[in-house]
């Protein structure tokens, strides 16, 4: 009996060891200058592997089933598919020219891609890897977001300075909302009531009411000892309860912590250099920020609102995605 139990135990340990990183909390970081993805073990809090990918990797996300990593290889005009189990590139998606960022519908399909040099949003059916549509928007499309109910897609355009609202069914632009100069990221609150848009040159975040499709508030940033032109908002993330928003402020090297009810900044956390995009760990214990100049990611303890660690990755880290398992 004892021997049988031992055998089962040994087998169980064997399975655990063989499955390797499958059980570790893992973050994937796109390194724009190195043309790589850093695989970061969040339990050990260190980079454990580097994957070679296409040129100028920027936007990065996981498929709904978390089996694959999708990465925009902007200068190769493609989206590469990386199998998470083997960390090998297993295919590509027809992104259109210069894909920068993208967003998946909550159901896992389709994928909406901003084509920076083509003034288009490309809609891709992920399972068949086919283009479903190309939607003309403003000049230099940038940020992409899909509403939680999946009915509205928002794309920002850097030069037109607008957030374009696209209807899911008709795939047509149904509203254009003017925001401040060079809009970057669009992010819906989890309840779908608002979409926030960061403006890199304007130095603000515009709060757009989803139903009214109008700007209903604007967040300004002021940090003591910081010139205003250094404040260049980019990444935005909301906690699951929508109570707190985090906004990455680029070369200010700060992340603003905002109370969404009062729309006031409560804190500015000093992170790495040129903070760009962010992602929560699935348990929302940590928020990870990519820092383009210091070539690291900062780990923010969300509850304590403190930066607890810097993890070195490749050169010019751009985006980050975290797997739930």
């Amino acid at each position, binding site marked *: 009996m004892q021997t049988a139990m031992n055998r089962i135990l040994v087998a169980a340990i064997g399975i655990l060891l063989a499955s390797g990183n499958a059980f570790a909390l893992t973050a994937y970081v796109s390194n724009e200058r190195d043309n790589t993805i850093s695989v970061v073990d969040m339990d050990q809090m260190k980079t454990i592997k580097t994957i070679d990918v296409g040129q100028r990797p920027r936007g990065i996300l996981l498929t709904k089933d978390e089996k694959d990593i999708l990465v925009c290889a902007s200068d190769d005009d493609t989206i590469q598919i990386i199998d998470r189990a083997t960390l090998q590139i297993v295919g590509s998606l027809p992104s259109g020219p210069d894909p920068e960022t993208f967003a998946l519908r909550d159901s896992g399909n389709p994928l909406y891609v901003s084509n920076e040099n083509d003034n288009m949003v490309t809609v891709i059916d992920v399972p068949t890897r086919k283009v479903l549509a190309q939607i003309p928007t403003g000049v230099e499309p940038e940020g992409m977001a899909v509403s939680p109910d999946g009915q509205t897609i928002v794309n920002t355009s850097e*030069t037109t300075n607008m957030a374009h609202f696209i209807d899911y069914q008709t795939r047509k632009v149904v509203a254009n909302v003017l925001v401040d100069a060079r809009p970057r990221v669009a992010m819906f609150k989890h309840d779908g009531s608002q979409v926030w848009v960061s403006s890199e040159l304007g130095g603000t975040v515009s709060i757009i009411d989803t139903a009214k499709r109008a700007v209903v508030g604007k967040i300004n940033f002021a940090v003591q000892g910081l010139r205003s032109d250094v404040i260049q908002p980019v990444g935005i993330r909301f906690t699951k309860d929508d109570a707190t928003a985090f906004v990455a402020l680029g*070369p200010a090297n700060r992340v603003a912590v905002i109370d969404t009810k009062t729309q006031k900044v409560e804190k500015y956390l000093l992170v790495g*250099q040129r903070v760009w995009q962010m992602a929560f760990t699935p348990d929302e214990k940590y928020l990870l920020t990519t820092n383009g100049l210091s070539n690291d990611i900062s780990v923010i303890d969300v509850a304590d609102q403190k930066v607890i660690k810097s993890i070195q990755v490749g050169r010019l880290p751009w985006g980050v995605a975290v797997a739930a398992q």
Partner: protein
Amino acid sequence: MKRTLLLATLLAGASSLAMAAPRNSDPDWPCEQVKVSELSVGSFWNGPAIDAATADWQKDAAVASLVGAVTQRRLPMDEAGQRIAAFAKQAGDDKQHELVLVFAGVFDVLNQERRKVIDGLDRFGQRQKVLAANLRQEGEGLRAAQTSTPPDDAKVADLTKHLLWDQQFFETRRQSLRFACDVATTIEQRLYGLSQAIQQNLG
């Protein structure tokens, strides 16, 4: 036909260069990243105030000597970190005060160094714009010569030669731009690394 093709290629080249030009609120700024004219203490420092009281950091000989050493880019960052740690240890009870002065000094020196680089990049951007305008003008001149009657082959050949030469000059400068922009970035990275080392020793 061959000449027309050549001209078309040159003009297309010039126009694609114009399209690839970096976008910024300052039209002369040549780098891809948004221009930041001056660095801010708040981007690097979470410690005690950097103000009038720290402006005279140079009067403290030990601080000035350390600042002079660690801001030299040829000194590896690891070694700079070790020197800062050794300085902090030696400062004893004055550690806090002295390290704040060191940061004030490091910030002053590197911000000044970077400012010179930014001024140089501004001039580079302005000059590149003038060169691009000249290229366009030369292209138009060549096109006019090609379509003139009677044809002046010698003039067309001469204008083509000049245009090719100027195009090459423009392109060489454009290619060196990334490295020039990286100099400002390298200074910022140095400042960030030193700020981190100083703040770690503050405790």
